[in-house]
């Protein structure tokens, strides 16, 4: 199940998704986090951020809305406390970085890519829950490309760009960041949503809108990865509603080369090691020698069918 992606030498293709695993401290109390293929750490900004007012989460059928607002302790503390903690585990780190302007991203990328255990960067241009930065960089192909280029110029490690599903054509953004030098894609971030409380008749989340995650968004992510993976040649880390090994197989068939598990960590803190164990069994049951055989097989087989006609 090992996977070799730019910057990420993974024992298996499973990692917790950024924002759903903090910096690993809480989950390390439940299991040895060295078992994971990689860890995508919580989005880091140059300055500490308090985030949005509470309530920050609301439940939906098969999903949850969140508007945390990129709360994090800031670059300095991540470098001095969080990354050294994670260095105690044998696991590559995908450092998710965010900012409000290009210079912020560049500064964080430059510093964080020098950390010994950070082997790749996840460029967050798709957070729907912050007023400045975040998604505003991820909805215009030329803006996304320019930011990717600027970060690529200073980073000492490969760059994965995390794409937003809140766009008309995600393939346009994907192609633009690939041309700008992205080494891989992470997709998808959350879908912008809202819930209204029947008693108060007001939005439940203080920020009014939030990002929808969980099983409810899996079909959207599968569709987008299916489309994008046919149009780019860089690998895709797939995410959105993964809760079990079957979901992982589906993501690989759609075109992902690794996956990130997000919201399911909140429901079951042991979900990642459970998926890793189940996946191994499923592959053996299906007599699949290596999981990489499955990447994009859903559309590859479509092509072979159409070409044989």
């Amino acid at each position, binding site marked *: 199940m090992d996977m070799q992606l730019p910057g990420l030498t993974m024992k298996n293709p499973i990692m917790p998704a950024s924002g759903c695993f*903090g910096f690993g401290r*809480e989950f390390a109390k439940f299991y040895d986090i060295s078992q994971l293929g990689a860890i995508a750490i919580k989005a880091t900004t140059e300055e500490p*951020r308090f985030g949005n007012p509470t*309530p920050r989460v609301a439940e939906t059928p098969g999903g949850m809305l969140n508007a*945390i607002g990129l709360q994090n302790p800031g670059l300095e503390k991540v470098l001095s406390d969080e990354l050294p903690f994670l260095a105690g585990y044998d696991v590559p780190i995908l450092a998710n970085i965010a900012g409000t302007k290009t210079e912020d991203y560049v500064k964080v990328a430059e510093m964080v890519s020098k950390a010994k255990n950070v082997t790749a960067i996840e460029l967050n241009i798709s957070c729907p829950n912050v007023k400045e930065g975040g998604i505003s960089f991820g909805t215009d192909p030329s803006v996304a490309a320019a930011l990717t280029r600027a970060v690529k110029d200073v980073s000492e490690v490969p760059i994965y760009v995390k794409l937003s599903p809140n766009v008309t054509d995600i393939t346009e953004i994907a192609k633009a960041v690939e041309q700008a030098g992205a080494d891989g894609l992470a997709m998808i971030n959350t879908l912008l949503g809202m819930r209204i409380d029947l008693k108060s008749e007001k939005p439940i989340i203080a920020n009014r809108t939030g990002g929808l995650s969980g099983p409810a968004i899996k079909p959207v992510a599968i569709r987008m990865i299916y489309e994008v993976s046919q149009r780019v040649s860089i690998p895709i880390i797939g995410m959105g509603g993964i809760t079990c090994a079957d979901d992982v197989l589906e993501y690989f068939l759609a075109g992902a080369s690794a996956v990130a598990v997000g919201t399911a960590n909140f429901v079951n803190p042991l979900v990642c090691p459970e998926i890793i164990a189940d996946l191994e069994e499923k592959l053996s049951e299906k007599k699949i020698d290596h999981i990489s055989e499955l990447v994009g097989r859903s559309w590859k087989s479509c092509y072979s069918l159409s070409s044989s006609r």
Partner: protein
Amino acid sequence: MRKELTTIVHHERIADQIYELTFTGELVTHMSEPGQFLHIRTGEQYMPLLRRPISICDVDLGKKECTILYRTEGEGTRLLSKRRVGDRLDVLGPLGNGFPLDTLEQGGTALLIGGGIGVPPLYYLSRKLVERNIHVKHVLGFASQKDAFYIDKFEMLGETVVTTIDGSLGFQGFVTDYVLDENPSYDLLYTCGPTLMMKAIEEQLNPERAYYSFEERMGCGIGACFACVCPVKDDPTGNEYRKICSDGPVFPQGVIQL
């Protein structure tokens, strides 16, 4: 802190929308701190998706049994209320930091003020305080007589006053109205209930020594998701915070901005 499939051994409705559920499992042996909570999966599927934070009401370490009281408010708790004796219950816990027990000397007096579904964690606290030879006084606030529960159980432990907003049981008014009127003496105050109640306690009673137990919408319950953070009091930077789930839910007076 662990996740375990426990077994339900008792489940019944004890007041309007209030249920008492007892389960047994190894993780109960870790529940020695009153005020901690559990994160419970109410169904077996991913609908509803998230776990529900519910406080520990009582623990029998010998029998490895834990009792929780919860109010059916939404889909999750309604689903939980359908679970039967013998069913397995997926419990994560014990979580958070509870009420400290060693800040009062033997013979001291603790005033415990609870409101609504904030009453249950005070029961285990009261039992633990009594075990330490501390006098306990309870003021339990409910909306109405139909919402009241566990009064006889609290009475077994110490002086107990019930207040109801509509006056259908006990003192008519809020818990703060009673305490302001009667001015009971105490050395330390412990409270759990709606934020508005605790805000009134801080502003109107202005206790010298108190511990507050908070609740907030949670995602993970273990400190990873940052959904339940609260700003601290008098922080000039605006960046300082505490997580209700893992730094709390119990905080000393003056830490959290009410």
